[in-house]
């Protein structure tokens, strides 16, 4: 056995034993642990946020505090009273009783962009469902993710949780990640990360819940409140310097409202790049080898991005706008960029604007999120119908909106499913409910129609579907 296999094996043995012990816990005992972890995680929200920014060099520490608040206070609020142990429902009419079973050890991949909040979130939902968790931090955020895990583990143990219910990798590698993912005792992978990692998770042979990339288009309808829209959009795009996958990537509108929106964005600190400046920003924002965003600009302030690009921008600029004509590889900034850079499109008609949004949606963001600012219900419904997105947020900052809980009633989550478009299993905001195996006990409740029907008739080829259905459904 190699050293990597030794490490993985040892941790998996501990996780499996923890799963066996956890299986015996009732709801009260489980909830006591979850509450303790929530409290400990919440109390550490500021120190963890500072640590995350210091370690990764990206984001805004005050915003990371809010992410930690979402991951603890809001997630706990969602799951606190949720029944996740034992009998979930009993319907003696249908004869079906539903019982919750834990899944087993869960491998939780943590992204660099949300190293502490995603850790806190996944630990809470795993413990709530009695599943031991192994945290796999991003190599650039191993310290802060590990610290978040340690704080939670100490609190969990003090509250009576099984030993090793929370473990975390301190020295990761691709080989170690692959070994864990394909371990036969691993019950589930929660894969929040880049496309490559999510694909690896799905290919591992272990059940996986993954996420997809976002390329969120924002359509600003003529019926929108423009200053309001500009304020909300920039509050979202600048949140943690654009590191939330659900943050806006492009704003689209009709030319009739273009100048008003430009004024509104400028009033909120937006700076419109010249064509030459766009080229310079492309040069540092996009990795020419992958044609995707460069890791170097993720979560950076506009001033830093400008410095990297060799351009001057006004002091106090909150976001950079790049006005583009088309969507596609020929316009690199029309793709996802997790930084305060927004593509800006003004189209001659409503139909052209919505088609542009569709193009953006399908350029690397299928299944994720779309956004609209409008006070026209018909337009909102039309837009929602046309977008391939797990979330369509209306008059809401997209980053905070998609995560859920502040501006809407979506379940607060740091793992946003993108459905088949994103090669995921669901479009839902992942929460505790997704980490339970539900056992259904079915008592005998016979189907009267079936037993009253002469089933030999199915063997008579001459009988049509209508004849059989009439006979099957007859009242007698």
């Amino acid at each position, binding site marked *: 056995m190699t050293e990597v296999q030794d490490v993985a094996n040892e941790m998996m043995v501990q996780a*499996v034993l923890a799963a*066996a*012990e956890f*299986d*015996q816990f009732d709801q009260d005992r489980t909830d006591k642990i979850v509450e303790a972890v929530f409290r400990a995680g919440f109390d550490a929200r500021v120190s963890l946020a500072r640590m995350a920014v210091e370690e990764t060099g990206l984001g805004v520490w005050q915003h990371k505090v809010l992410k930690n608040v979402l991951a603890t206070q809001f997630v706990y609020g969602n799951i606190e009273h949720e029944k996740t142990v034992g009998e979930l429902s009993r319907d003696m009419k249908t004869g079906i009783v539903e019982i919750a079973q834990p899944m087993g050890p869960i491998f939780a991949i943590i992204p660099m962009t949300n190293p502490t909040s995603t850790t806190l979130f996944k630990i809470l939902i795993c413990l709530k469902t009695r599943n031991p968790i192994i945290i796999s931090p991003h190599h650039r955020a191993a310290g802060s993710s590990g610290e978040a895990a340690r704080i939670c583990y100490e609190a969990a143990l003090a509250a009576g949780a099984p*030993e090793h219910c929370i473990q975390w990798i301190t020295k990761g590698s691709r080989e170690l990640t692959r070994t864990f993912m394909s371990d036969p005792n691993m019950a589930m992978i929660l894969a929040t990360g880049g496309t490559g990692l999510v694909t690896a998770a799905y290919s591992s042979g272990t059940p996986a819940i993954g996420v997809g990339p976002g390329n969120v288009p924002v359509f600003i309808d003529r019926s929108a409140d423009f200053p309001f829209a500009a304020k909300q959009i920039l509050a979202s795009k600048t949140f943690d310097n654009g590191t939330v996958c659900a943050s806006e990537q492009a704003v689209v509108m009709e030319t009739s409202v273009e100048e008003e929106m430009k004024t509104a964005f400028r009033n909120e600190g937006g700076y419109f790049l010249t064509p030459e400046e766009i080229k310079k920003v492309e040069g540092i924002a996009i990795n020419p080898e992958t044609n995707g965003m460069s890791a170097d600009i993720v979560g950076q302030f506009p001033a830093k991005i400008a410095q990297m690009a060799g351009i001057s921008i006004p002091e106090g600029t909150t976001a950079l706008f790049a006005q583009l004509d088309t969507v596609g590889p020929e316009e690199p900034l029309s793709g996802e960029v997790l930084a305060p850079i927004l593509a800006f499109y003004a189209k001659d008609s409503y139909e052209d604007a919505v088609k542009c949004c569709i193009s953006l949606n399908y350029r690397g963001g299928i299944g994720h999120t779309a956004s609209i600012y409008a006070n026209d219900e018909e337009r909102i419904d039309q837009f929602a119908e046309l977008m391939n997105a797990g979330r369509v947020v209306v008059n809401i900052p997209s980053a905070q909106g998609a995560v859920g809980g502040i501006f809407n009633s979506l379940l607060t989550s740091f793992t946003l499913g993108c459905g088949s478009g994103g090669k995921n299993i669901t479009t839902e905001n992942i929460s505790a409910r997704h980490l339970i195996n539900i056992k259904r006990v079915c008592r005998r409740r016979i189907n009267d129609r079936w037993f009253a029907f002469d089933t030999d008739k199915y063997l008579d080829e001459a009988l049509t579907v209508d004849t059989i259905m009439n006979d099957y459904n007859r009242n007698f």
Partner: protein
Amino acid sequence: MVQIDYDDEKRELHCRFGEHMDSVASIDVARCVDERLNEALQSGPGGTGKDLQVIFDLGKVEYIASAFLRICITVAKRQDIEGFTVVKCNPSVKKIFSIAGLDKVMAID
């Protein structure tokens, strides 16, 4: 927490555990089992445990922590005894051994 009896004729070390084998109880139990096991080994022919059977009687056990499972693993892995068996598990406890995958590596009745 544990009652340990040694039958010199049959060369059996019979350990009967209490109802609640949590982490705290498991610490004391581990020490007791280890001490009595070593005594039984020394009293064997040539001071070895070649014919020594260790039996864990879980007839009264209602709850087991992972720490107790580790005790079972530790004993099961010993090369210096003849055999190790877990007996009289109730169905809930048997299930815990199955979840832990231990029913594949030790005899469980």
